[in-house]
């Protein structure tokens, strides 16, 4: 059927007499193409010596010449030292013990340097209480090589010298002699810094020192100070605990500085039939909740009631099912006696006091040598904030804190801008520094001197591991100059230590080598120098609710913490252990509330996760467009949101992720009441795990303590059977094998054991692996396409019923098509309050590896020592191996991730590349890569032994893999199984040991230890 429609090409056609339309009827173009101009000039055309053919010849020749010339190798220059330092041998790493104390993370660490540049953070085994060497600490080395760092001091936005900086600062302080100036600092936990600050205040009495912790532990500090007279936090040794009851305290996360998982894990492996029992009452699903034996989702407002019920006998307001569980917990606590402990994260003085009182006889809590890290007093900080806003304070010196970003009152920003005097000591031009009149560029902790006292009686040193990369000076260095306390901070530090901490000055070198020293020296710290009267900040947790209100719990994520290292791509791409989502913060909400509010999460065509946006209202504070993620286990009526995101100043565009939740951190309380409104639009999450449940399979094997104690291993840790000649034989039977096995009993045979009981999912291993193996960062878009490059992932599974056990039973009882269709469908969805299991998965180094047999170019092959080896230069990128891998641990380089502007992360700038490990190649585009069992480390150990003409020492291979070396809980154990005295040779024979997907017959060299849940009731 022909159409009667007339199509108009342009408005011009409406004009009947348009010349343009007429011309266009004849010609293709309105204006003649000026061919005449260049072809018409016969003379030039003919006189030209270059014909079209010649031109083509030239093109051909140059192309050929260029490609031939490309065959020439480039000239590589090698520049040796003029005067080589004695201790540096190119190619041999040096290690230095130092400490990190950035105001949020406090830990003793060991730094590996190569040719004078730090490349990796490791745990310092000489430090018994090393603090929390978590994922952020492991990643901190990359933060030093941040190209957005300040390169020198600035005055009024202009680069200046330190001499002018000094002049400006002292002049300004002198001008404001009679006005209030506040020195707002992070918690340093440093005796020398306290001393210097006291001297500074003596010189300028108008300056008042206020300590500000961006994430406050103020109430716990107040309670402790009230009870024990010293501003500190109790330390806990959970290896002594039989029963742990946590009410809203994520102690495996960042609660009170974290670092408790080491002692916690010790009691989580059944010994003599006993292990600790862990109750967790909380609203957000936290790492602690995920690891607990009993997790009770409960609104923040009811947590205080739970606590009251635990320590006294009031059960008001508590729902029935909670009271039952509280009662059970209470019974167990009673039975455990001194070995029971209650901890709480409720931001309330009374709650904290109650817990201290309860625990005072407990063997778990240590108050004699408490933690002296966090010192902040939120009432004081609040006052500073209000005084700056009111104009009462004329000058603000901030050190290591970012108040413009992290203070909750939005008016502070403008008030700060208008301050007569503002000086910011900062590593970067962050939100505060960018507004400050004077900026003191500070070095990274790896470029600094310093000392710390993390725990009373244990002192540690901080030493530079590299010369300052930029023209930076420590705050302490400036204080030494301003107070004329010596020639340099180093001298001051050394003198101070000789006079106060060391028994003799000969000890200095030893202390510096070890990084830590125990001393009974009485040293004045911020803990003792706090103001006389104890200001107790009483805050009432707002529980008044109208319908529709939600209780918000603010928390910090494993990746970014308080947001200091927001420009660190390793941390941005580290999947959150619980949500498995990267590059974002978001509201977590329960499925029930989500349905009620019309909030959806759905997977789009390529599997990536999308979610709804909401606007969040809290009084006058509004945060627009916050993505929402449905979180199994989130208490109904509550939501969670992570702090530390939404930073923009001096943050690379790719890393300006999430929303700033500090604006909701009113009165420095993580618990708030808010309302949310769904708005249009869908947020694109970068979630690395698309399937949340195991659907009744025994990928993570688990059993209960009761079964473990009473029944034979074959009952709860069965070896799969296969059928041969219609008879069932064990999968380990040689008859079940397609392949012949090599004899590996001679030489080394490496195995890795992963204990699912003690793996808390903290993610330190993921970052350690990143640093050791030059694993690239791919960015949010690529992660969404499931192209993340992590060699080691920590799978997190939820149960679809109340527990994994019920899942398993449900699956067993499915029969018939109809039932299987409906019930398997149901099993894909996690329960409202699921059990959680973590499982680190890396290349399993199968002895009968499916990947090796399908590689057309033999780029992946098996080593005699059990390692499945991947030869990058041989790989042609068919990806057959990845397809044939049952564990999905192979990672493909879809793009060139180094020196590529499309992936502008640390491998794309000279500074960021300094963190690369020179012993491991940076992979190129189009090749497959995967975990190598850190073959560079095992080879180095073997070589060392050979060079010294000896056998490898017993246990020398233990924990030489980056992941197992980083594991605080000892969940990952690496070693040589042919070494009879190694831990690993015991572990592979353990009753709990099993292979992942053993039924496939791949014979992996990674062995898992069955998870045991303590379900014992009193």
């Amino acid at each position: 059927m022909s159409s009667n429609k007339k199509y108009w090409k342009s408005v011009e056609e409406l004009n009947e007499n348009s010349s343009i339309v007429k011309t266009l009827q004849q010609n293709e173009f309105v204006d003649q193409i000026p061919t005449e101009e260049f072809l018409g000039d016969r003379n030039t055309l003919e006189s030209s010596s270059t014909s079209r053919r010649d031109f083509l010849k030239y093109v051909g020749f140059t192309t050929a010449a260029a490609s031939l010339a490309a065959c020439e190798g480039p000239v590589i220059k090698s520049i040796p030292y003029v005067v080589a330092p004695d201790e540096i041998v190119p190619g041999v790493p040096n290690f230095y013990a130092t400490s990190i104390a950035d105001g949020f993370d406090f830990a003793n660490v060991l730094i590996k340097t190569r040719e004078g540049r730090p490349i990796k953070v490791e745990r310092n085994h000489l430090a018994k209480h090393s603090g929390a060497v978590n994922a952020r600490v492991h990643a901190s080395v990359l933060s030093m090589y941040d190209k957005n760092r300040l390169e020198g001091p600035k005055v009024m936005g202009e680069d200046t010298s330190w001499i002018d900086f000094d002049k400006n600062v002292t002049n300004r302080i002198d001008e404001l002699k009679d006005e209030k100036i506040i020195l707002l600092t992070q918690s340093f936990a440093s005796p020398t810094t306290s001393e210097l600050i006291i001297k500074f205040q003596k010189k300028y009495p108008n300056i008042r020192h206020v300590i500000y912790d961006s994430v406050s532990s103020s109430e716990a500090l107040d309670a402790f100070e009230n009870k024990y007279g010293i501003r500190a936090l109790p330390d806990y040794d959970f290896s002594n605990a039989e029963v742990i009851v946590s009410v809203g305290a994520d102690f495996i996360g960042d609660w009170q500085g974290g670092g408790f998982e080491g002692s916690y894990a010790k009691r989580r492996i059944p010994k003599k039939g006993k292990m600790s029992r862990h109750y967790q009452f909380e609203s957000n699903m936290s790492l602690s909740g995920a690891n607990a034996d009993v997790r009770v989702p409960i609104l923040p407002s009811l947590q205080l009631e739970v606590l009251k019920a635990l320590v006294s006998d009031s059960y008001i307001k508590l729902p029935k099912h909670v009271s039952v569980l509280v009662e059970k917990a209470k019974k167990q606590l009673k039975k455990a006696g001194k070995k029971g402990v209650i901890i709480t994260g409720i931001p309330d003085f009374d709650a904290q006091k109650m817990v201290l009182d309860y625990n005072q006889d407990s063997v778990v809590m240590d108050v004699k040598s408490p933690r002296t890290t966090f010192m902040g007093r939120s009432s004081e900080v609040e006052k500073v904030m209000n005084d700056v806003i009111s104009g009462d304070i004329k000058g603000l010196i901030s050190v290591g804190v970012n108040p413009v970003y992290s203070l909750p009152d939005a008016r502070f920003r403008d008030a700060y801008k208008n301050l007569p005097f503002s000086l910011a000591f900062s590593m970067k031009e962050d939100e505060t520094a960018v507004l400050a009149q004077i900026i003191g560029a500070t070095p990274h902790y790896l470029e600094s001197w310093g000392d710390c006292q993390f725990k009373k009686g244990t002192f540690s040193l901080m030493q530079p591991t590299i010369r300052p990369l930029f023209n930076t000076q420590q705050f302490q260095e400036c204080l030494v100059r301003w107070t004329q306390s010596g020639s340099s901070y180093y001298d001051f530090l050394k003198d101070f230590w000789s006079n106060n901490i060391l028994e003799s000055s000969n000890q200095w070198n030893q202390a510096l080598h070890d990084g830590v020293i125990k001393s009974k020296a009485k040293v004045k710290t911020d803990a003792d120098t706090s103001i006389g009267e104890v200001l107790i900040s009483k805050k009432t947790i707002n529980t008044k609710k109208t319908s529709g209100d939600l209780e918000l719990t603010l928390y910090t994520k494993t990746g970014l913490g308080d947001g200091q290292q927001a420009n660190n791509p390793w941390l941005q791409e580290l999947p959150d252990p619980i949500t498995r989502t990267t590059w974002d913060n978001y509201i977590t909400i329960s499925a029930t509330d989500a349905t009620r509010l019309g909030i959806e999460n759905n997977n789009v065509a390529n599997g990536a996760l999308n979610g709804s946006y909401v606007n969040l209202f809290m009084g006058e504070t509004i945060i627009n467009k916050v993505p929402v993620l449905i979180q199994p286990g989130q208490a109904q009526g509550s939501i969670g949101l992570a702090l530390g995101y939404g930073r923009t100043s001096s943050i690379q565009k790719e890393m300006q992720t999430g929303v700033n939740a500090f604006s909701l951190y009113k009165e420095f309380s993580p618990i708030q009441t808010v309302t949310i409104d769904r708005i249009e639009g869908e947020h694109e999450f970068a979630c690395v795990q698309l399937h949340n449940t195991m659907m009744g399979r025994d990928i993570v094997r688990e059993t209960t303590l009761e079964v473990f104690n009473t029944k034979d291993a074959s009952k709860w840790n069965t070896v799969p059977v296969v059928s041969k000649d219609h008879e069932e034989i064990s999968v380990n039977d040689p008859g079940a094998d397609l392949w012949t096995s090599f004899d590996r009993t001679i030489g080394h045979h490496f195995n890795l054991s992963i204990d699912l009981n003690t793996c808390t999912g903290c993610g330190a291993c993921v970052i350690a692996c990143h640093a050791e193996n030059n694993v690239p960062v791919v960015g949010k878009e690529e992660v969404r396409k499931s192209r993340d490059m992590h060699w080691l992932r920590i799978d997190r599974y939820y149960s679809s019923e109340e527990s994994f056990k019920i899942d398993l039973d449900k699956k067993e009882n499915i029969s018939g098509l109809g039932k299987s269709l409906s019930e398997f469908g149901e099993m894909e969805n996690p329960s409202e309050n699921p059990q959680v299991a973590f499982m680190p998965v890396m290349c399993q180094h199968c002895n009968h590896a499916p990947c090796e047999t399908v590689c057309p170019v033999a780029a992946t092959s098996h080593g005699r020592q059990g390692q499945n080896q991947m030869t990058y230069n041989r790989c042609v990128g068919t990806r057959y191996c990845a397809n044939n891998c049952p564990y999905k641990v192979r990672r493909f380089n879809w793009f060139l991730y180094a020196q590529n502007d499309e992936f502008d992360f640390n491998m794309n700038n000279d500074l960021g590349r300094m963190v690369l490990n020179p012993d491991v190649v940076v992979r190129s585009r189009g090749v497959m890569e995967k975990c190598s069992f850190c073959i560079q480390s095992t080879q180095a150990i073997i070589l060392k032994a050979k060079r010294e003409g000896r056998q490898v020492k017993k246990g020398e291979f233990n924990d030489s893999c980056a992941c197992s070396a980083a594991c605080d809980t000892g969940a990952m154990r690496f070693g040589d199984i042919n070494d009879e005295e190694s831990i690993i040779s015991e572990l592979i024979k353990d009753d709990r040991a099993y292979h992942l997907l053993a039924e496939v017959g791949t014979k992996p060299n990674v062995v898992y230890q069955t998870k045991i849940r303590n379900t014992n009731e009193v």
Partner: protein
Amino acid sequence: MKKVNYQNLSLLLLVFLLAFSTNTLAQEEGDVKAGEALYKSNCAACHKLDKKGVGPALRNVAEKYDREWLYKWITNSQGLIKSGDSKAVALFAEYNNSVMTSFPGLSNNDIDNILAYTSLPKPEPKIAVAPVSASNNDDGNLQNLILAILVLILLLLVTMFYLVAKSLTKLSQANGVEIKSATKKPLWKVIVHNQFLMLVSAIMFLLVAAYFMYAFFMQIGIDQGYAPVQPIHYSHKIHAGANEIDCNYCHSSARKSKHSGIPSLNVCMNCHKNISEYNGEEDLANGYTKEFYDKEIAKLYDAVGWDDAEQSYTGEEKPVKWVRIHNLPDFVYFNHSQHVVVAGVECQTCHGPVEEMEIMYQYSPLTMGWCIDCHRETNVDLKNNDYYEKIHEELSKKYNVEKLTAAELGGLECGKCHY
């Protein structure tokens, strides 16, 4: 590398010797040879003949000072200074109060001998002689001669055949035999029409072409023989060859690290603080004269910031940008200490006759095939290393093996070198 022109060298040596002998004849008191030996073992560390070192230049020192005074000074300089001798005190002050070692062991005769050596006149600098190239190609000439004779014989044969053919044709024409020359196809047409021959030759051509193509592509990225010009002309021939300095003295990290290490300049200065000029053999044919080498030493002083006249460091350092000769690709892990210390491989095994290299070059192809070949052939010394001893013990128990190559111990596994 160019071959050393030995003829020229020996000629020069002769000239040198002649000059030397005339000099010795000119001397009257003292044995110059004995003096030279004493001078080199006792004095050369601090004194040079024509240049200020830690102490003053010593040429013709016998003329400057009274001989008796010199005896006293050399046997006990501090004593002389303490005695208040004005000359001695002045000299001591001039050289920054640096104490001269006393040599009470030297007899007056020994000192005479040394002074005789220092009184030799300064040798005239040699002028580079243009290389005489015609005389040294005997081998080549012989080959050329044989070739020429062969060509001549061939030509003779061709003419002979031609003449014979011509006369035969004439003869047959005379006899009335007709020759069908017009119908005869030219040779190339015959070949073209012979399909089998064409096919075979095409295949042959392709095979040969493929062979050469393969050879061409296989040598891409292989820099065997790469001998770049370095910022300072450093002669391994002089250091490792003539002076027999152990490789590990400068490349010390080869024993500890994966890198052999390019020595830092302070290592050079351990010796060159005292060696500011070249006194060895000269290779005039290539322009490697004393003057040339002295200039290179001056470059070192410039880089390290050493003021030779003042005998002090200026603190102005200019790191030398050497051109790296042996470049393994990034995806290969190679460890020097494994080969040098554990395996005991001589440096020369891979790096060639370094002690003969005036200019350092890449001796080995450094290809994977080359590595593998060696790993396949080399037996591991199982006896003198506890590490191997244990493995060997177990292996011999189980499989009854006596000898093991590196390959058999896992030296061919991909992951051992590629990670």
